[in-house]
């Protein structure tokens, strides 16, 4: 758990970078801090592991105040991933990934097992990469190693500063999805900085939207998209916020909330899996690929069909409900 208690940061005795920040990242939650550049999101993140000092207030990490923690010891208990991956060019991949366990004095066998396990987790072959050097890897591979390094000593808390920001869109999407899978398994408490609203909507349990060092809104993605707290939030999340919010739901959510229409056999229909995101489903209809989408579960059993007006009905309901 990360708890921000009235955190303030003042530069040069008068420039307020962060003003009275109060919020909590609950255990096992992934919170994404969003905002325009200069809003203080990275500063706030770096205040957690004390790379930036705190002027006033307190940050509690699993109940312990950062003011009373040993900086070095505390940082070794926090996974830290940065945009440029920050791998050490002079060390091979295994030494890079195992730097924190090494500092903590783990034995060789334990480190080797941990390395193998983590590399499998991030989707790289441990033996193939063990002795290679960072510059021999692609950007995506380097960032996977960066994630493995952050997870090495199994820290309860992770800080991620635009971890996928420097990657091309295809690799970025891959890594986002893989990381979500990893997070489902490991349930770390994660504070994550991003400037990409789509990334935040896709990955976050909650989004913290900052502007000028102040919190604009702290809410679940659906709530932020459907009920923006003020005009700045509404503008930041975009005019297409309803469309964005659809990627938060699957066809199954719709099927559970509303009664599906009966299947009418017609050439203009297409079969879709119920795990498909609603955003993709509506795109299919809008793309004129089909007028009617037939929903199937994993066994291939047909559950009914959806049409444009059914989706519309569902959205009305969700937007109203999230008030």
């Amino acid at each position: 758990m990360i708890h921000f208690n009235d955190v303030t940061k003042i530069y040069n005795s008068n420039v307020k970078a962060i003003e009275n920040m109060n919020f909590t990242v609950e255990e096992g939650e992934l919170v994404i801090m969003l905002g325009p550049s200069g809003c203080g999101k990275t500063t706030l993140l770096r205040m957690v592991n004390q790379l930036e000092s705190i002027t006033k207030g307190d940050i509690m990490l699993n109940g312990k105040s950062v003011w009373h923690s040993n900086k070095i010891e505390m940082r070794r208990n926090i996974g830290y991933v940065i945009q440029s991956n920050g791998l050490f060019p002079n060390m091979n991949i295994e030494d890079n990934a195992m730097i924190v366990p090494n500092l903590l004095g783990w034995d060789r066998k334990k480190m080797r097992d941990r390395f193998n396990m983590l590399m499998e987790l991030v989707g790289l072959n441990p033996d193939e990469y063990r002795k290679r050097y960072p510059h021999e890897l692609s950007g995506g591979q380097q960032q996977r190693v960066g994630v493995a390094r952050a997870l090495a000593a199994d820290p309860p808390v992770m800080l991620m500063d635009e971890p996928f920001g420097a990657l091309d869109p295809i690799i970025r999407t891959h890594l986002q999805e893989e990381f979500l899978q990893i997070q489902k398994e490991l349930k770390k408490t994660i504070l994550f900085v991003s400037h990409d609203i789509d990334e935040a909507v896709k990955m976050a349990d909650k989004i913290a939207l900052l502007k000028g060092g102040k919190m604009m809104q702290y809410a679940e993605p659906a709530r932020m998209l459907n009920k923006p707290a003020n005009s700045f939030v509404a503008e930041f999340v975009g005019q297409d916020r309803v469309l964005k919010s659809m990627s938060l739901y699957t066809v199954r959510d719709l099927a559970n909330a509303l009664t599906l229409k009966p299947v009418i056999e017609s050439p203009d229909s297409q079969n879709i899996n119920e795990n498909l995101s609603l955003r993709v489903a509506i795109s299919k209809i809008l793309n004129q690929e089909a007028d009617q989408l037939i929903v199937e579960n994993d066994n291939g059993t047909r559950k009914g069909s959806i049409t444009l007006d059914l989706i519309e009905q569902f959205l009305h309901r969700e937007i109203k409900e999230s008030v």
Partner: protein
Amino acid sequence: MCSGGDLIVNLIEYFVSNFTFILGYTWDHIKLVGLAIIIAIVIGVPLGIYCSVNKYAASTILQIASIMMTIPSLALFGIMIPVLSLINEGIGTLPAIIALVLYSQLPIIRNTYTAINNVDPDIRDAANGIGLTTFQRLIKVELPNAMPLIMAGIRTATVLNIGVGAIATLIGAGGLGGIIYQGILRTNNTMILAGAIAVAVLALIADLFLRLIENLFTPKGVKK
């Protein structure tokens, strides 16, 4: 005047018949410069590291080292004489080594300082964020990545010192300068040339040797 052909023949003859004589002078030269460089590294590298953490000290230290460099070598040797005469060491090896150490400081300090400052800030940030202490960061991350540039400074200093070391013979420090100096006194062109060639060859070999060492000490991932 002798023709070019004669000169080469004379030169070869000189090298063959005075082989042990030249080797002795070369060995003296290596000892003089080698000792000076080792002392210069022991002083210069830590100073360079210190400069990289203390910006105020950096400008002062680099300033002083630059001034050392601007003093003509002959003058610097000259200054050593009255100063060290106070402890009866006015001429000989000691003043020569001190002068050579002072000369080597600028390239060694400046390169160490620049090399550490040039380590990618993101890498330094990652090292801090992961929980390395300042000393661990220096040993595990900054120095290994700074190695090529630090070694380049040492190489520059060594080659420079081999040249300047040839003048040290004037204050009685021995070395290959002795052959050149004797050649000048006797107006023996062959001897002058032989001494000059020996100094140049020694500088080339030293540079090559230090490149090998650099290769040995540079981590695999840092080599381009």
